């Protein structure tokens, strides 16, 4: 087996992977960085992010405001020390991106412009029209070309981590275009593989968002934290799942049911006017808006479309100039997928799985429980998102903690012991045998059946509103699917660019991540953020459940669930209030 040695190996070349690669290169140009990604960097799912990236920049705004919006948005499950670090470094990283050429949208005077996002008191979302993720990713990819110490391994699929005496020693990956399995020796590994939205049937995520890195770390003992919190984005195209950015609502777009009524006012987010207005109505947090849709659907007040139930996102009053200038991609998407021109017609939308709050447990330094292993971006749970991510915090997270991961990995490598190639090669041999078993199995179940069954049970049991019974059923179904997965067979026996084999391996990752989500969910007997129950646990229980859930891998069954305290420094849990209520309390407490 070919061996490639590097100082730092990074899995995933999206916003987080690229930023950490650059950070290692800047920390020490002498360190060899192997940037491994199963797709070319510009295809990473960061490219699909539309809305924006948060960073306090206006004089009347403050780090505390950003801190409060994040912590209250996360229903107080955020680690406040990490949030403090995060909010105080966002603006610097956004400015770094600007210096690297990122085309942030501007005010007439040339300063960076910002707009409002759901759950945000004062607007602080930097944006590049409605393609912020795209421009950030391309800026980072193009800037990474400047650093010779970063060697890219495009279209290499990560099969497993190599660990020795509890320390990470490298990665085993397959070169997709030849099928060759190679051993990457590295003193430090950074996982930046993104979220796991694809475990759900309807999601806004790309095909590659299958939780690979989460599963790799999980299998090697790193706990997956807060996995039960999966964010539904309130406005995505029905069935297709393509995202319609929150920026539409930031610009003044409204949501109406089939009677043309702005239904959000019935769910504690009103009064509807004046509009647009921060932290109210359509600019409430994502979990509230998604929950409101579910209620409207129960009451039969949603619109029937060929692609399923939806509500209407009305942008007509914004006018053609503003729509084509500020939301060009949205007009394109609505036109080509739904045959709807937003200038003249409202866009049918519905909540769709969008973001995985949970992930590999890390902290401010992005270090995981395994020495030498770091995790950054959506695959990690660094502690800032809590039970419900504030819109535009995740793009900022990529660069703020990407820099952390790179710098700390570079630091770690200096003192790390040399890699033991012997044990590494042996482990790599085991990995090869595992993949060989799947590839060479003659008869077995078609993986699409298992995948669809997983996606359907997750949607049914771990959706917007959950019941203990429903979640338990999902856990049982997933356990059965894991059994069936042992017999999955792949028809394609070739080696060159065999994507069917990769889909089979991905399915293995997804089943484990889905099980961690469902098991963590059924054990959380309260409602918090995006985890809402309607079986007697409707209330938030700060007594027993103001704590992070931890899912530990169990090779022979469901994960062991444990809990750990939430780091609370200065913001005590209070009611999450938005809309009129929020304003009232703000006046009284003259915060």
């Amino acid at each position, binding site marked *: 087996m070919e061996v490639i040695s590097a100082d730092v190996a990074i899995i995933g070349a999206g916003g987080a992977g690229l930023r950490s690669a650059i950070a290692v290169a800047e920390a020490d140009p002498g360190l060899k960085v192997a940037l491994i990604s199963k*797709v*070319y960097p*510009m*295809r*990473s*799912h960061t*490219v*699909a992010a539309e809305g924006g990236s948060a960073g306090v920049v206006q004089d009347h705004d403050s780090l505390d405001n950003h801190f409060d919006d994040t912590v209250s948005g996360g229903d107080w499950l955020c680690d406040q020390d990490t949030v403090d670090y995060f909010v105080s470094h966002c603006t*610097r990283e956004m*400015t*770094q991106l*600007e*210096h*690297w*050429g990122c*085309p*942030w*949208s*501007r005010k*007439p*005077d*040339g*300063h960076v412009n910002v707009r409002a996002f759901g759950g945000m008191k004062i607007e602080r979302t930097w944006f590049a029209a409605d*393609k912020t993720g*795209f*421009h950030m990713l*391309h800026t980072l990819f*193009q*800037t990474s*070309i400047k650093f010779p110490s970063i060697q890219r391994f*495009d279209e290499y699929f990560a099969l497993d981590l190599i660990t020795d005496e509890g320390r990470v020693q490298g990665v085993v990956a397959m070169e997709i*275009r030849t099928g060759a399995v190679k051993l990457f020796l590295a003193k430090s590994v950074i996982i930046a593989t993104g979220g796991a939205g694809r475990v759900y049937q309807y999601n806004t995520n*790309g*095909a590659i968002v299958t939780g690979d890195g989460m599963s790799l770390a999980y299998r090697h003992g790193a706990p997956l934290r807060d996995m039960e919190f999966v964010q539904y984005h309130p406005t995505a195209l029905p*069935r*297709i*799942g*393509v995202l319609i950015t929150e920026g539409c609502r930031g610009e003044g777009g409204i949501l109406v049911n089939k009677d043309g009524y702005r239904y959000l006012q019935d769910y504690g987010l009103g009064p509807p006017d004046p509009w647009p207005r921060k932290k109210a109505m359509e600019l409430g947090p994502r979990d509230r808006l998604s929950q409101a849709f579910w209620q409207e659907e129960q009451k039969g007040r949603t619109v029937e479309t*060929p*692609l399923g139930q939806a509500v209407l996102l009305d942008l007509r009053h914004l006018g053609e100039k503003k729509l084509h200038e500020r939301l060009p*991609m949205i007009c*394109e*998407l609505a036109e*080509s*997928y*739904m*045959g709807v021109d937003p200038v003249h017609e409202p866009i049918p939308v519905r909540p769709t799985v969008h973001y995985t709050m949970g992930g590999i447990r890390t902290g401010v330094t992005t270090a995981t429980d395994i020495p030498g292993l770091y995790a950054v971006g959506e695959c990690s749970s660094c502690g800032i998102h809590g039970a419900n991510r504030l819109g535009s915090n995740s793009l900022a997270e990529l660069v703020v903690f990407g820099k952390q991961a790179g710098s700390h990995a570079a630091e770690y490598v200096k003192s790390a012991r040399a890699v033991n190639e012997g044990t590494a090669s042996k482990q790599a041999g085991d990995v090869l045998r595992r993949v060989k078993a799947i590839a060479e199995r003659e008869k077995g179940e*078609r*993986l*699409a059946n298992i995948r*669809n069954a997983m996606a359907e049970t997750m949607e049914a049991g771990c959706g917007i509103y959950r019941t203990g019974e429903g979640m338990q059923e999902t856990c049982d179904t997933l356990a059965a699917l894991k059994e069936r997965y042992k017999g999955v067979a792949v*028809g*394609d026996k*070739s*080696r*060159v*660019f*065999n*994507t*069917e084999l990769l889909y089979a391996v991905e399915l293995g990752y997804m089943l484990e991540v889905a099980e961690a989500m469902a098991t963590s969910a059924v054990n959380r007997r309260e409602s918090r953020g995006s985890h809402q129950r309607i079986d007697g646990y409707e209330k938030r229980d700060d007594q027993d459940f103001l704590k992070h859930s931890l899912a530990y891998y169990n090779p022979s069954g469901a994960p062991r669930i444990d809990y750990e305290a939430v780091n609370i420094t200065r913001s005590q849990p209070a009611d999450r209030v938005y809309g009129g209520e929020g304003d009232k309390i703000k006046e009284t407490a003259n915060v």
Partner: protein
Amino acid sequence: MSEQQSDQQTIQIEILRYRPETDHEPVWQSYTVPFDPATSVLEGLTYIKDHLDGSVSFRWSCRMAVCGSCGMQINGEPKLACQTFLREFHPGKVRIEALANFAIERDLVVVMDDFLEKLTAIKPYVIRDQDKPLEEGEYLQTPAEQVPYMQYSQCINCMLCYSACPQYALNQEFTGPAALALAHRYNMDSRDQGVDQRMEILNMEEGVWGCTAVGACSEVCPKGVHPAAAIQQSKILGTLDYTKMNALRKFILPKGAR
């Protein structure tokens, strides 16, 4: 898209298959796929992969025409499979082939190395003699100063322009539309001072001078990047660079960030 749509229309999809370990040359293979007005060609391909023939290989991810993975020839035209709909071809059939002007790695997957080399060769990053400290905040750049380069920054690297460009077909050394448009994006960014370095690549036979303004690149571009325009403007910059008319060149280039 589950398969139990009852009153389902179906359509014929023919794919140019090529498995290097067994095929000596590409061979057409036909499939029948159910669809409705919102079914994209990409969803047709994923249906085939899930239910009919798992060995069909193709690149895809975002399904919203922003990642650039799913470029392929659809009925002879270079298109993004996720943004092209089966409804457009019914009742006719859909013939899908890997992107033209690139070697086929396998089925609908092309070899991208040449494209990546060209994209990275033109120094697609801000080049400055001196970068001001981050503490001093962002470079000022008015919306008016963004107009000269914004269009050329929309490229999703989907390579449709390369598959449409006859000059790239005739001469693989040609730098090509997307790379030249990206170079122009940086040349026209008021924060960049790297135009001279990029001219060393652009002002070559295989650089902008490999283009004869056919314009097919701008026709097929799904993001309206208009690489043909970027190249014509780069030819003028190249000419001014060659003839040392620096005064006129300064007039065209952005004034530099404040």
